[in-house]
């Protein structure tokens, strides 16, 4: 592999890790917020 390919690999994998983490947190928060609103008594 060339230096350019190593650099691209590092950037792509890093962005992938950050994105997967961010999306996981976002989905978890949405699920919890949804569950919370479902369990709220009707006003």
């Amino acid at each position: 592999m060339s230096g350019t390919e190593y650099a691209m690999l590092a950037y792509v994998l890093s962005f992938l890790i950050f994105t997967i983490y961010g999306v996981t947190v976002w989905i978890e928060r949405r699920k919890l917020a949804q569950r919370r609103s479902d369990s709220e008594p009707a006003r």
Partner: protein
Amino acid sequence: MHTAKRFLPLAFWTLVVALFAFTTSMLVWYTPIEATMGTVQKIFYLHLPVALNTFVAAMVVFIASVGYLWSRSMWWDDLAAAAAKITALFCSVVLLTGMIWAKSAWGLWWTWSPRLTFSLVLFLLYIVYVMLRPSIESPERRALISSIYGIAAFLDVPLVYLSVRLLPDIHPSSITLDPKMQLTLLAWALPVTLLNAGLLTATYRLHRLQRIGRRRSTAAVAPLSQPVNPAEGVSG
């Protein structure tokens, strides 16, 4: 108010993505190629800001842990737990980018040099923090043990920072950058720091929601003689 609450995170993440797009294009078209290492040196513009933000996140764990021991407020515990996850996340990227650079520059993925070893220890310390928390059932006990652990784990940060200066190490201790390279490094520091702040805030809110949810489900089965303080849920 409700619209602003929804619009602000969207605007924030759009800004972060736009800044990353800008700094990446800067890296491709503006930043010069380093003479001895070649293109692979460009990993450095991500590696260093992420490493510095790992230290910042570990510092947040430390401060929040002290804050919990001082005030016994669960707000601090939620913040410490969120920051520990961010420390482990950022440290994993530091190790990954470092290993890829090492493979290209040194011809090996890993060597047990002091800085690399202390960085791996830092990663493992915060992974253990994140993994052990759910195994402690009582929230107060979990917060107390986590706080003490969070303070002790931070002791590894100065070791990571100083190891390359005090001990013989293969890891570069400093690098000479021309003005264009310095500007690229400064430009990369901004979106990486914003990413750190954004992910920390999102994770903290998740922890707070989880805690409120757990307390509500406990309150639903608790006898009426043990009311749950509703004000705690608002303060976080």
